[in-house]
């Protein structure tokens, strides 16, 4: 017996909805089995997760607070991805943004105007950090996956170095924290919760990026470079410029995410500014297929996971790492399922040999 793979000529529409849904359910089942194996009732765990996210005012606002940075990192991955580039470095770009914003907040604050200044510097820092792999890719064809990832480690250790050393706060005992920012350097919060102004900006940015990539000639150029680099060349579009500019745009957004986290949430620079939002941007971008509006939806799914993940940690002592497992599984199931949208599989028995 032989397995025969044929290209589908037509794909039924429902498959495009069915596959993501089935993938999410399959991943929930798989993680449920893992939970069961370590002695946690998966149904209890999942209900706790849902209740935490939707059952209280705190939960709902937390969901938004955790979704916002994921929207931003999802965009930071999506934009270069449309040009065929993998920005695995959103995590590092976020850390550099957090560093730049904190530096301004702690040392250079002309009080009333400090917030916009923090935003500008964070965005610049993210852009600068993303421009390194962008330029190396454009000029030397250096693999951007490896370079962006290695730069993540550099950025994370840089922030660790600072909060253990030069920027360590005076009254933080042995914690790797800087001092608290002054009130001027903290984003306004609403409803008496942690819901801060940055969340709203994240949503606006997603819509703005949607318009940029669907309604402008720049967005069109990016799409052509991603879909068909040769055609782009004939159309007179500079592939190098698109490579560098999409990376920088992604870095700018991730850099802002860093500012938002330190100014809106932590109110200081600290080690582990992000629990891996930069990496979560990858499954988000894949689920959203590069569409910024879908990025918002996918980000909510993973935001829910982070809220639920921390609820499961406090209630059952389950490590948050389970979120990573879930993310990986969803994507693997989706791309595995994607195969069935493109190909039809049939089993061929011996007599059919050519």
């Amino acid at each position: 017996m032989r397995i025969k793979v044929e290209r589908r000529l037509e794909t039924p529409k429902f498959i495009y909805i069915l596959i993501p849904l089935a993938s999410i359910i399959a991943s929930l089942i798989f993680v449920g089995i893992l939970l069961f194996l370590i002695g946690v009732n998966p149904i209890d765990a999942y209900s706790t997760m849902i209740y935490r996210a939707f059952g209280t005012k705190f939960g709902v606002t937390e969901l938004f607070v955790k979704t916002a940075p994921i929207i931003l990192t999802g965009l930071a991955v999506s934009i270069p991805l449309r040009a065929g580039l993998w920005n695995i470095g959103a995590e590092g770009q976020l850390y550099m943004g957090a560093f730049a914003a904190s530096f301004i907040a702690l040392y250079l604050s002309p009080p009333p105007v400090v917030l916009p200044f923090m935003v500008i510097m964070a965005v610049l820092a993210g852009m600068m950090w993303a421009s390194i792999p962008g330029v190396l890719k454009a000029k030397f064809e250096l693999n951007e996956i490896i370079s962006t990832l290695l730069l993540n480690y550099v950025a994370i250790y840089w922030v660790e170095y600072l909060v253990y050393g030069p920027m360590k706060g005076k009254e933080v005992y042995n914690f790797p924290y800087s001092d608290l920012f002054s009130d001027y350097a903290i984003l306004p919060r609403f409803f008496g919760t942690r819901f801060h102004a940055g969340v709203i900006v994240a949503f606006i940015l997603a819509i703005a990026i949607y318009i940029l990539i669907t309604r402008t000639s720049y967005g069109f150029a990016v799409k052509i470079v991603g879909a068909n680099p040769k055609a782009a060349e004939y159309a007179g579009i500079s592939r190098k410029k698109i490579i560098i500019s999409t990376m920088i745009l992604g870095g700018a957004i991730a850099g802002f995410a860093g500012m938002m986290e330190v100014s809106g949430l932590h109110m200081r620079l600290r080690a582990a500014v992000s629990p891996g939002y930069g990496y979560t941007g990858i499954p988000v971008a894949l689920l959203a297929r590069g569409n910024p509006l879908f990025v918002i939806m996918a980000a909510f799914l993973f935001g829910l996971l982070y809220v639920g993940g921390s609820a499961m940690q406090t209630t059952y002592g389950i490590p948050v790492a389970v979120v990573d497992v879930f993310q990986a599984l969803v994507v693997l199931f989706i791309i595995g399922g994607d195969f069935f949208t493109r190909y039809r599989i049939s089993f061929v028995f011996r007599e059919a040999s050519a």
Partner: protein
Amino acid sequence: MLESEFIASLIAASMRAGTPLLFATLGEIITERSGVLNLGLEGVMITGAMVGFYFSYVTGNPWIGILAGGFAGLLLAMVHAFFTVTLKVDQAVTGLMLVLFGLGITGFLGRGLVGEVASYLQPVKLPLLSEIPYIGTAVFSHDPLVYIGILIVPLLWFFMNKTRYGMELYAVGENPEAADTVGISVDRIRFIAVLTGGFLVGIAGAHLSLAYAKVWTDGLTAGRGWICLALVIFSGWMPQRAIFGAYLFGGLDVLSFKLQAAGLGVSYHFMRMVPYIFTILVLLFSVIREREKFGAPSALGKPYIREQKY
């Protein structure tokens, strides 16, 4: 003679720290030679590290741990092979998800092993050779996997360059259409190459937890998988060059500890950035130098689907 002692201990430590890098780099060279890119090294390696540690912890025999680590690597590689070779899915995406999966599952299941002690690989002093002053402690007093790693290099070179199977591997990675035409099963060779590579990467992880670090911690591999991906490029996909890269980066890894121990007042956190910056520079250097005769297999990263006529 204090300086010679320092250098001897630095060489010894470089070889020990370089051995996991060597195994993982060799594993990825085999994988990539077949035309399959496995970006999941970091995830495969850490899974090997945790599973290896667990089995040594339970059985008390580090060799069982090493083998178990290898098989864990093989299992994850099988997922990669199934997705990329059988289903022809995007290799980059699958690899990246293996990283997330490996880091996640080890953080999840390895929680109970943090702080535990497992029996680790004991160093073996080679008779007579280890008696040589300085050189003896630097080169001839290691755990057996260090020597095995050194032995694999010429064997792999011979296999890849002088045997029929090596040639087939080469053909599949360079020109799968042509290989297919002459009757070589592209998918089968790729599958075997990915599994073999995964086995070596798993062993690399197990060496990390059972001979180098001697403990299990969350995120133990700390980016070594990515450094090895860069080392593959640096070595030009040649095993004989991989060993230099691996020991060089092993040395870099331990240098920060040694400098700190020597009381030079260099911040530990600052030194931790150095290997990653250095990796990018080395990568850049390799890419610029070999731009014309770049050693990458031509079909690397491209799924092979036999053309169909309707």
